[in-house]
């Protein structure tokens, strides 16, 4: 390529391809381990961490307050009403679950596809998934009118001889989300076992040694261990892969199965999955960009990652845009008055502003700019775009839930929706909860898989020289 000569001057670029390197040059096994393990094992907790953790924890208490009040008073403290009987709780649920999807996609699908660049971002993306599922999983429970009876959604043997109603998509949600949470946690944990071994071995305090030793499950790094580890990873990746598609498909059924115009549409499953990955990658970016800056991980999470994630967003964003386009097209092509009115109302009704916010945040802004490589590798710009897409994807759910409900079949029942402070408190509180959990993760667990990074180092290639290095025990 003609540009190669110019680009090779940049140490971050691979001279062979002209792409950014996945790992900046100069890393060795030792330096990778030191870089990542020291973040965790340092006895000094930075003031910045404490500050952000305090903020996150304080914000998380909003959830505690809001949910306590909710349990005392009932769901009426929220803005939900007739006809808009679902509001922030469901919007937030879908939004958080959607965010989680990127983590699973990165850790499972990209693993199967041997996209080794994913190794740098896989661990914290997966942590993001779990914390997002924690935040998401809270909502279906607290949004019901009598949460103390929420266990009735599970098919458990009981003296009443009553089963859940298996035709309800809400029940499918229960299975989908609980499976998803289980697999994600197991996959995440299994992935960390070799790193726990490393941490155990490097830890100075006895307490840390004890704890990391406990969770390392006796990892010794033997070939047998590695073999089983790799097999388990592959199996779990195989299990998790369909979940990436199925969980949000099932969640889209909550809407698609209903008779409501704006919900009742077959395009929802793919469109929801694409949207989930879109928002998930945006969230990974939102997390990765400050992380690499603060912990000086630019060498491990390089512009290549940012660039790749931008490309994934471009692709999934385009699918989402296609979905929006199809909705508009079908509202005309179906010749159904319900669809036509729904779309007119969504665009030009009293809440039309929300539709245009969504169009701007999800399509107009990202899908025009992400084509440009300069912008894709501009860190500040990518951070901005990740925030915008997150907002846009939240509004997508808002538009779907609220603007379909508030003006449905019988015009006499039309209403409106205006969120209350309790709605906002719960939503913002989950962000605090997420932040706090994520900061704990960053502080106490290896946020980048050392073993997988090391495998990607040039020295991991089994050359004679490398074998020596391995033998040296790094």
């Amino acid at each position, binding site marked *: 390529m003609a540009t190669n000569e110019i680009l090779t001057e940049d140490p971050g670029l691979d001279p062979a391809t002209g792409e950014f390197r996945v790992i900046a040059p100069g890393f060795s096994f030792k330096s990778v381990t030191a870089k990542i393990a020291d973040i965790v094992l340092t006895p000094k907790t930075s003031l910045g961490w404490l500050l952000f953790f305090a903020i996150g924890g304080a914000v998380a208490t909003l959830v505690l307050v809001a949910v306590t009040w909710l349990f005392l008073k009932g769901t009426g403290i929220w803005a939900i009403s007739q006809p808009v009987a679902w509001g922030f709780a469901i919007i937030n649920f879908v939004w958080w679950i959607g965010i989680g999807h990127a983590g699973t996609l990165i850790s499972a699908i990209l693993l199967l596809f041997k996209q080794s660049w994913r190794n740098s971002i896989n661990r914290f993306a997966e942590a993001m998934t779990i914390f997002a599922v924690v935040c998401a999983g809270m909502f279906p429970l607290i949004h019901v009118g009598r949460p103390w009876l929420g266990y009735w959604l599970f098919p458990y043997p009981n003296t009443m001889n009553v089963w859940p109603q298996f035709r309800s998509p*809400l029940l499918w949600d229960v299975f989908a989300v609980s499976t998803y949470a289980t697999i994600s946690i197991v996959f995440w944990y299994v992935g960390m076992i070799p790193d726990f071994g490393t941490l155990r071995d490097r830890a100075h305090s006895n307490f840390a040694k004890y704890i990391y030793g406990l969770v390392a499950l006796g990892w010794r790094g033997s070939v047998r261990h590695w073999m089983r580890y790799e097999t388990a990873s592959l199996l779990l990746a195989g299990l998790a892969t369909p979940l990436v598609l199925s969980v949000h498909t099932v969640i889209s059924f909550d809407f698609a199965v209903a008779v409501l115009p704006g919900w009742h549409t077959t395009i929802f499953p793919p469109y929801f999955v694409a949207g989930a990955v879109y928002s998930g990658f945006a969230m990974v970016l939102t997390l990765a960009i400050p992380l690499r800056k603060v912990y000086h991980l630019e060498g491990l999470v390089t512009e290549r990652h940012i660039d790749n994630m931008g490309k994934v967003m471009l692709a999934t964003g385009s699918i989402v845009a296609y979905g929006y386009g199809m909705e508009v097209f079908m509202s005309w092509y179906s010749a159904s008055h319900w669809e036509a009115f729904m779309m007119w109302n969504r665009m030009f009704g009293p809440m039309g502003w929300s539709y245009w916010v969504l169009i701007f945040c999800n399509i107009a802004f990202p899908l025009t700019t992400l084509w440009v490589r300069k912008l894709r590798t501009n860190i500040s710009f990518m951070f901005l775009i990740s925030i915008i897409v997150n907002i846009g994807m939240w509004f997508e759910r808002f538009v779907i839930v609220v603007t379909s409900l508030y003006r449905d079949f019988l015009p*006499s*029942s039309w209403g409106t929706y205006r969120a209350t402070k309790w709605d906002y408190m719960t939503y913002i509180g989950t962000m605090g909860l997420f932040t706090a959990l994520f900061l704990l993760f960053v502080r106490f667990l290896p946020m980048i898989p050392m073993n997988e990074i090391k495998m990607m180092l040039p020295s991991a290639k089994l050359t004679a020289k490398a074998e020596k290095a391995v033998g040296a025990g790094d």
Partner: protein
Amino acid sequence: MTSERGNDMMNQDNGMTLAEVRAKLNGSRGKRYWRSIDELAGTPEFEAAVAREFPDQAQEWVDPVSRRGFMKLMGASLALAGLAGCTKQPDEPIYPYVKQPEDLLLGRPDYFATAYPSPTGGVPLLVKSDAYRPIKVDGNPDHPYNLGSSDPYTQGTLLDLYDPDRSQHSTLRGERREWAEFVQVFRDKLIASRGNGGEGLYFLTSTITSPTLARQWKEAQAAYPKARLVQYDPINRDAVRAAIGAKDLQYDLSAADVVVSLDADFLSTAAFPGFHKLVREFVARRKSPEKGLNRLYVVESTTSTTGLKAEHRLGLRAGEVPAFTAALARELGVSVNAPAATWPDSEANFVKALAKDLKANAGKSVVIAGEQQDPSVLALAVAINQALGNFGKTVFATETVQPLPTSQTAELKALVSDLWSGKVDWLVILNANPVYNAPADLNFKAALDKAKTSVHLGTHIDETGSETLWHLSGTHYLETWSDVRSYDGTVSIVQPLIDPLYHGHSAHELVQLLSDEPSLSPYEAVRTTWRAQLSKSGEFEANWRKALHAGWVEGTAFEKGTAVTAASLPVPAPSSRDSVEVIFRADPSIYDGRFSNIGWLQELPKPVTNLSWDNAALLSGATLTKLNIEEGDILEVTVGGQTVKTPVLVVPGHPDNSVTVYLGYGREQAGRVGSGAGFNAYLLRTSATPFLATGAKLAKTDGKWGFAVTKSHFQDHRSKFFGGEGSGNNSLEGNEAETRGIIRWATLEEFKSNPGFANEGENHPKVERDVTLFPNWEYNGNAWGMSIDLNSCVGCNACIVSCYAENNIAVVGKQQVRIGRNMQWLRIDTYFEGDLATPRAHFQPMACQHCENAPCEQVCPVGATVHTPEGLNTMVYNRCVGTRYCSNNCPYKVRRYNFLLFSDFETESLKLMRNPDVSVRSRGVMEKCSYCVQRISAAKIEADKENREVRDGEVVTACQQACPASAITFGNLNDKSSRVAKLAKDERTYSVLADLNTRPRTTYVAAVLNPNPELAEAPVEHAPAKG
């Protein structure tokens, strides 16, 4: 008989008084922990707790405001609970009853005939009583006047009985007193005034409806010839008295092909005398278009459901109606004492076409004048009816239903001037609230101070009760014996169903004090009144029992005559169309304010506006534009120096430069529900202009008011491309309702040429039962269904209030209604069609449709809403976890959710009122119309006992029972001979949202209108109004 049993119950309640508890505590040697209670007993907290434990003092206990007080009392009352738990049975052996009272079977209700003494004539009732508690008020189905129908006010009176804010004891200067103490003082006064003929003794009462009370007064008057009785109700019939004297007009709409209303709102509320019968007869002529239809013309000021049901409605300023009536009379050849006015083309054409139609239907038409109009309108209407030969055919003159007809405003004025001149020694106010509702110019509150002794008898310590020296706790009509005439003259005995809850006393007892037999009970007084009548044929006791049983006294209906002379009254000239007039009307929900503490009625969306919990300045859209204000802005309305601030609401069809205000709001001492709701329109109302004030000034002031309007209304600004008309003059909801086939109707001509119009054409989707891969479920037993005749429904709301009472529905309050959380299982959807300046409206009662393919059922994750083999879509409250998914998936949005703890589980008096067959729902639970499943079950049990099928008409739902228009039919669709099955087969029957294949069990019969071809509607050209 009920009264006796009630006494027993009260005695049981009184079995443990504070004194007895004390005595018991002192007398017993006691277990150890009793001593601490004994110590406690001396403290004021303990006394307060004990006082509140007993119903006759249970005042603050039920007031949510003093929850703090409740918390303070917790300790002491917990101790009390311990006390109750440890109380021994008496040492002597006691036995429970082994034979229960003959007429009491717990769990099986009894029904008693009685009547609600409404100021416009009694409403005969059959009241359901469960364990001696009246729990449901409904019309007496055998009574010839209402045939079982009722109205919102009547339905609401049940809650009035159990109102926790009722006055619970008599007071003197606010201190508690006994009735006997008052009697002592009053008798002393009477003895003193024997000599001067009762001079200075004044009585002020609301309109007397009881012939017995009238008789008692006449006897008192004979003993005290100088005593004065003044009747006053703010919504009174002075105009009738002025126009035709002590007579009433009755109309027979079953014989009328053409009905003309001149500002007579006879279809919307029982504020119009004879409402129940008029509605029934009016809609009877609209049920079978194949046999022809009547035609209704309405000329009205305030938009009412009567006008919106009309084939032809002409909105005129209230001040123009007399002149319009004169023009109509002149057109019909009646001599008129007024100069001819010139009318714009539209009105002139209307008069011509109307007159032509009336002439063509002479003797088969009727002209009804509104009683809140100028008396000249009534007089001219009489003259027109006479000229058309309607008297004796569709119009009758009878004795008046008021036993003591008077000109009330004039009498009140005289009373006030007597007060000011110091002539009033004693003023006894009976069941009236003049401090609140007397004309503002009389300043009654100040005048009341001039009375040396003032007494107020009433069920509430209201604005008047708190100003008078004495307040006497009054009785509800279900607590005392009385009598009343329904508008056709038939006398009903008002039987009490429960002993006075708070030891109240009735007006009968008070007026009886003036007689020689001061302690004669109301029971005996009523019997005395009717002894002669009931002894005419046969024995009195037997006839008395029969009258009580049937609910009316045989042979007391008024003779229908034709002799009436209308006074020759000057026709007032209409005010300039540029000047602003203010129209005062009784509120459709809370009447003149007497029902303002009834949550059911406050929460009821008023017909036309769908406003609840408030009144407002009702304006036309054009006036709003002209004033450059918006809905919810605050307006200062000034009339004759008096100013009130009121929020603004637009009403389609309202005349321009005209403001309607509903009376009855802005009360200060109505109780926890009514106090502070809305603004007080009485402050604008003077004795000279009780129903119409002219020359008002409107000015916008700062502030915004949030209304609780249950149905939004938007203007349709969509362009043609998006399915609208672009003008902004039409209602978006109305346009959509027609496009979506929710409302289907045709003219009589269209119907004749195409009787199947309701199920044909693009916008009229049909139910197609065979478009399914799965075989249809077979309903082999009963298949319950409902049919609602949209031609009959007049949107009066009686069904909704009836549903409240039957199904223990919670009242949620204004703020919750504002955000769309009202709990009414049944609503009446109002859709405005056409130009909002001259709209037509369609009323559609909408409750759960009991879809055979119910979308709600399949999305419930716990199976809390399921289908019964008889086709009912049922809610299992116990199983509901409250995901609200069912509500989202309900295309009819008829499900109601307990977002908060809406049901009142604390107020003791309300517990007595609840229907024991229906659970009271707690928070977090979805609820909805059940087709009154408890009534279905009751009928099925009866049928099972007799080993037969449920008969058609045996199951009557609460809404159906209340409906004065018999618009609702319920029954078994599988019984081919049932009325509902026949209606389901009617060509006009359609399902709402049929294209969704929900297969609703509730179907609607499309309306057919009978417009006059000469009055083809011409589109009105005007700038779009704001709204």
